[in-house]
């Protein structure tokens, strides 16, 4: 699969402060790409460079095989974290204006706008002013403004903040629908559960450096701990524990279950899961056996804190 966006060795400094220290990223076409990192990591600086709001001190950005330039503005849709609209301007006029700034003709903009207003069931808002709308309603308009010009690359910075769960779900479905239509989505957020749910690829930026990048599944594989959670019902606890501790690292585990059983967390190291499983089946009734997959949240916290310790 080709990459729609390549960021190559981008450096950005503000005075003496380095916001991006030679960061490189590859965003595959048609993916949902999670850009993660603590506050102040450099995410916004990077996103602003991709949007040509600022320019890198060195390094380059390539969009769809071409060096990023003014003609690409219409190919990118951007929903900033700090977002808002003109309060006293009518919703319809405002959307038309912003779409035309992205290069759409008046007629195209109007047609697209009608499509989206219809789709999100907000037709009646055309002549309302933003100040008459609730925050959630304004966020919907903001979403429409972002996607109106059918961009190839969409960048959402914390897209779900400010939405109630119902509207957040509508927006999530719309994002998935856009992906289906071929758009690529870069997704910057702190909400790890939405990353798990939506993202195909992730990158972790911390203190101006990229620490991790790759397919979500590959990243998880790289961070697997060979830890298994085990539930077992046995008469001979001591014998079982003796056998287990001979070969593995064993500790108490805590998970929800309907049985009254022994709950263990077992680090199998280089051994294969079957070795553990056969040992267990010899000793009792296995009620629970699952590999503990690290969550993005775990990976995020572990990587960031490790880095701090180093």
């Amino acid at each position, binding site marked *: 699969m080709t990459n729609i966006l390549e960021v190559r060795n981008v450096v950005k400094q503000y005075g003496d402060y380095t916001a991006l220290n030679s960061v490189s990223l590859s965003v595959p076409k048609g993916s949902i790409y999670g850009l993660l990192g603590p506050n102040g990591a450099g995410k916004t600086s990077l996103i602003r460079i991709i949007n040509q*709001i600022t320019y890198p001190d060195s390094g380059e950005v390539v969009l769809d095989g071409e060096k990023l330039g003014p003609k690409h*503005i219409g190919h990118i849709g951007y929903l*900033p974290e*700090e977002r*808002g*609209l*003109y309060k006293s301007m009518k919703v319809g006029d405002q959307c038309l204006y*912003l779409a035309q700034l992205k290069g759409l003709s008046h007629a195209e903009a109007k047609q697209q706008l009608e499509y989206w207003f219809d789709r999100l069931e907000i037709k009646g808002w055309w002549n309302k002013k933003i100040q008459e709308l609730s925050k959630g309603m304004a966020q919907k308009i903001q979403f429409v*403004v972002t996607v109106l010009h059918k961009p190839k690359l969409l960048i959402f910075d914390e897209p779900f903040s400010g939405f109630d769960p119902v509207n957040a779900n509508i927006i999530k479905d719309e994002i998935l629908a856009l992906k289906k239509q071929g758009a690529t989505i870069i997704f910057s957020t702190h909400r790890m559960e939405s990353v798990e749910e939506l993202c195909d690829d992730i990158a972790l930026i911390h203190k101006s450096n990229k620490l991790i990048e790759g397919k979500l599944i590959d990243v998880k594989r790289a961070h697997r701990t060979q830890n298994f959670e085990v539930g077992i019902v046995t008469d001979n606890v001591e014998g079982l524990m003796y056998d287990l501790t001979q070969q593995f690292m064993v500790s108490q585990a805590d998970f929800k279950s309907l049985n009254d059983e022994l709950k263990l967390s077992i680090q199998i190291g280089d051994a294969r899961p079957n070795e553990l499983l056969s040992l267990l089946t010899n000793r009792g009734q296995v009620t629970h056996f699952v590999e503990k997959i690290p969550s993005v949240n775990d990976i995020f916290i572990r990587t960031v804190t490790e880095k701090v310790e180093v």
Partner: protein
Amino acid sequence: MSALTLIIKREFIAKVRNKSFIVMTFLSPLIFAGIALLIGYLGSLKADQKTIAIHDETGLFFHDFKADDEHRFADYSQTDVKTLQDSVGGHAYEGVLVIPKAASNAELQQSIVYYSDEDPGIMFMENIEDVIARRLTKDNYLKSGLDSLKIQQANADVSIKLKKSSGEDSIKGINWLKITLGGLFGYLIMMFIIIYGNMVMRSVIEEKTNRIIEIIISSVKPFQLMMGKIIGTSLAGVLQFSIWAIIGLVIMAVATSLFGVDMPSAQASTQAMAMAENSGTIQVLIREAGNLPIITMIVSFIIFFVGGYFLYSSLYAAIGAAVDNETDSQQFLLPIMLPLILGVYIGFFTVINDPHGGVATTFSFIPLTSPIVMLMRIPFGVPWWQIVLSMAILFATFLGVVWFAAKIYRIGILMYGKKPTWKEMFKWMRYSN
């Protein structure tokens, strides 16, 4: 449509549709007219006529005092001075002028007293002194055997005629016309810069507080946005000024024909007219007005207006971008207001006295004051190379300032929550894009 045109259009419509803009457009001429009418009305009111008691022991002077709108004179020569003094300030009279008998005129002129508890007006006192002095002078002539008629004939009356080197007649009143025209142009530029520069600044702050700014500059360059804003606002300003001018003219025409009130704003030119009439040469005034460099004035007005407005409003835009709210903008606005005010002061105090002197000439080259000062000098005739040089300096500075302002602007619009200092703003200059 290009992005710049779109921005100009939006800014223009946003300004023009704004309620306070509409209200101000139609209300302020009415307020001005109202104030003008009020001043005219108050001016036409007659003050109460005051009575002044004259105690004239010589019997020489009483008939020389002529009553006018403000004062009339009553003969109290038969009443005792002490009694008169006691009832000063009562309803009969406001003050008592006591002219005692004296051995000589020299002694008399030192011994006249005016009793009053009110402070008499300067004009009033001068008038009284003048009346007495004239009578005494005449009397002195008589006593020394001089013929007062011959003296009057011997009095010389000098009136210097003004001519150009070409021999054409000129008149003194023309300077008033020049000052009025130059002052009007200069003042117009200052007002325009202050009103619409502030509007540009507020509009920048609005975009920042609305947080729409990041969406817009992901579509257009900050420089385009800034220029679009400045141009759009100035178009709204030109429209507003034109409406004011039209309404003002209509009101003036109506008021003059209905009430016959002289508008104070028209006073300066009326004064020039009056002076011209005094010299008896209204034709000269008209011909002189025709000789003014009208085309140069209008062309320079347009060029200096555009240059000055863009120079200042880009500074206003930069300030708007650097701050988070209007309150914080005050510390940065002062350095902008100072040269504007300075320009008008120099215009009205220095240019009038010495239009081509060192101070006036210098400040008509300094770009922050040149739009005002040079425009005030032009009616007095400025060599063309000076005008061109001043314009060149103005536009060179304008380019530099716009570059500087755009830099501050593009960094500032994305900075939130920090109240910047001058030092910090200079640090932004070093940032690359």
